[in-house]
């Protein structure tokens, strides 16, 4: 059965800290891995990763994929209270339309 596991489930940090969120997967026919940020409602797209070892960066957020070890990390540097959200990892497969989501990591950033 295809599976996506995120860790930690929850993280509490202070503003300015750097955090690393993990996503591991066991799937067949891997196509890409996606990271989303979910605040109040809609998951908003952060990154799509298809190739190993190529870092994607957007401001203080960055992410990288390791297709050999089957995981990805999402880094957030100099965290701000606005980074507080649930971060979702999802895997897109060939031969199916569905995304397979992890349970998410709840990040809380306190001033």
């Amino acid at each position, binding site marked *: 059965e295809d599976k996506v596991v995120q860790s930690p489930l929850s993280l509490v940090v202070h503003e300015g800290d750097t955090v690393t969120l993990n996503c591991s997967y066991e799937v067949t026919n891997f196509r890409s891995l996606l990271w989303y940020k979910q605040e*109040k409602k809609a*998951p908003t797209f952060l990154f*799509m990763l298809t190739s190993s070892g190529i870092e994607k960066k957007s401001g203080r957020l960055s992410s990288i994929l390791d297709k050999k070890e089957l995981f990805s990390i999402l880094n957030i540097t100099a965290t701000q209270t606005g980074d507080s959200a649930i971060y979702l990892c999802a895997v897109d497969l060939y031969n*199916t339309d*569905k*995304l397979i989501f992890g349970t998410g990591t709840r990040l809380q950033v306190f001033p």
Partner: protein
Amino acid sequence: EPEVTQTPSHQVTQMGQEVILRCVPISNHLYFYWYRQILGQKVEFLVSFYNNEISEKSEIFDDQFSVERPDGSNFTLKIRSTKLEDSAMYFCASSDLVAQYGYTFGSGTRLTVV
């Protein structure tokens, strides 16, 4: 920035009633999806829709569910006879042909069945 719009944002319905959840996907997207998230659980795939027909559906998407694209812009999810366990956040999403920019999700409809 283009977005996926969902209405209503919150719907409360009695068990056994029919509900229709509405979505307006991004205009040049070709693939449309419904996902749901039961409180405290993972986001789960329900159904995908392409070229005016269901492309794929999950085991959750039983005969109580149906989808339709009644005109060029709306995409609807109908639940014929709601059950308590249908209470969840329902997300609509759309993507272009190769999902090169990921899948764009709407802000969701929170369905509460009482």
